């Protein structure tokens, strides 16, 4: 079970005149198993917040606790281990590796783990099956549609069965029908107990979430 607590988190980029305050004094709690939508205008700091939650982006000040782990007190390599074990990222641009097949892309988070190829492959096929793509496992990302690529990205995020999934505008580039499919998928994962934090512009999708965090100019509301 992973409870996320942000304590006075702030992040600014750059120095002096060029300094940008992306996140300002954010204090919040997200309970284990919650489905949270993050909304706000472009440039308001949503992606920054998400990357901080995922242990990818050190805040300028403040503290992020996930259960009893002070994430940014960890060393860089331990933080990488933490990401591997606890976080599944779904990026807006899918970010599949073009030269790997879908199955291989989904296996990526397991590449640094011990275990037989067969076991890893089975886990990947299982994850692909969950997003309805097990038949296309041997294709390359360029040989499937955008909606399918997003589903592969989700399969990759869940293959290690992380307790937290962070999705940055997973439906942003998709038509509404495909977008709804993706939302259904995230909803199902949440039903299994996975914490989902999803950035979206679409109020309709935000309704699927239990709670909406609004960000405006770096400030959480």
């Amino acid at each position: 079970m992973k409870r996320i607590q942000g304590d006075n988190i702030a992040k600014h980029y750059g120095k002096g005149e060029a300094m940008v305050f992306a996140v300002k004094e954010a204090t919040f709690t997200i309970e284990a198993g919650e489905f949270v939508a993050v909304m706000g205008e472009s440039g308001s700091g949503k992606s920054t917040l998400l990357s901080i939650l995922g242990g990818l982006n050190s805040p300028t000040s403040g503290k992020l606790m996930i259960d009893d782990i002070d994430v940014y007190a960890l060393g860089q390599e331990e933080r990488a281990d933490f990401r591997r074990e606890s976080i599944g990222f779904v990026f807006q641009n899918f970010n599949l590796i073009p030269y790997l097949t879908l199955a291989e892309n989904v296996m990526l988070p397991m590449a640094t783990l011990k275990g037989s190829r067969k076991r890893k492959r089975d886990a990947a096929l299982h994850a692909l099956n969950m997003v309805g793509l097990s038949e296309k496992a041997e294709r390359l990302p360029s040989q499937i549609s955008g909606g399918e690529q997003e589903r592969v990205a989700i399969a990759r995020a869940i293959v290690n069965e992380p307790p937290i999934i962070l999705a940055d505008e997973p439906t942003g580039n998709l038509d509404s029908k495909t977008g709804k499919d993706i939302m259904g998928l995230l909803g199902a994962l949440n039903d299994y107990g996975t914490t989902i934090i999803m950035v979206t512009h679409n109020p309709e999708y935000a309704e699927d979430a239990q709670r909406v965090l609004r960000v405006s100019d770096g400030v959480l509301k």
Partner: protein
Amino acid sequence: MTLRDIAVSNLRRRKAKALFVLAGLFIGVSTVVLLLSLVQAMKQNINHKLEMYGANILILPKTENLSLTYGGLSLGGVSFEMQEIKEAELDNIKNIKNAVNIAAVGPMLLSPITVGDKRILIAGVDFQAFQMLRPWWSVKGALPDEEGALLGADAARILGLTTGNSFKVNNKEIRITGVLETTGSQDDGIIFAPLAMTQELLGKKGRISMAEVAALCTGCPIPEMVQQISDVLPGANVMAIQQVVKGRMETLNQFEKFSYGVSALVLLVGSLMVLVTMMGSVRERTVEIGIFRAMGFRKSHIIQIILLEAAIISGIAGILGYLAGFSGTKLLIPFFAEGHGAMVPFNPVMAAAAFLLAIFVGLGSSAYPAFMASRLDPNEALRAL
């Protein structure tokens, strides 16, 4: 799926880049192998001659600009319009301090003669002494006694004569008692005949052109013996063949140093090619590296992937480079080593060294790009889209 799978897949996809890195290392390794194995083969060639050469000391007439080639060793150009030494003087050699170390003294009278319509060199020799001086001679037929002649392999071929035939020189009929097997030396092109007969034939009684001396030991005090012989033969130019060969060895050592220099340079260029290409490849893969890091790859995993790729290419470059260098040496060695017996054997140490060198240079030049890749901030890397 392992880190190795990722490395291999990436290499397959970026073939052009991989080939570029491969070429850089390949050129480096093959050049190094080529130069070093050429040097090695030439050294062996010379050592072989040192071992084969029965005579250690040459006695030549003192002339202003005499130069000579004999026994496959360049002592300079050939000139047989030479002065002569008195045969009787050679007896003085028996009185030198190190006389016990002398195994054989082989006087030799050299002169061009005409056989039929061919100009050819005749050598009047003491065949008994020559059995010591030319231990490697193998004769088809027999050595002449008082009369007759022994033909070098090329001489026999050019004259179209063989054992049992005769030829005429200055109205004297000379029977061929035997033919030499090819020696790879100048002996091949010469007619050997008994010294006394040759002297009479040429009207040069008691005169010789040169003499060869075989010292009966390894590690004889050759320089001292040369001095002692010079002292008893004031009219002659005495030199040690070993020294001539050693002089050649020194030239070869110079060439070896030059080879090391060229090798270092080519390797440097090769490793720069690797460095630049790998740097470019890391830059191209920024987003990919960001994804890997976001998914929990450690910095060390990123380094592993890049070094694995470098190691795979380097290994291939090492093998191909060795094969190319080895074949190149085989092709080139006839132009660099005289005579026969210049061998280019497969050298497992050189092969292993070439392989390790490629890996070493490949990994060395990829270390910095790999380090840079591992230091990419994953958050920034993902924004680079």
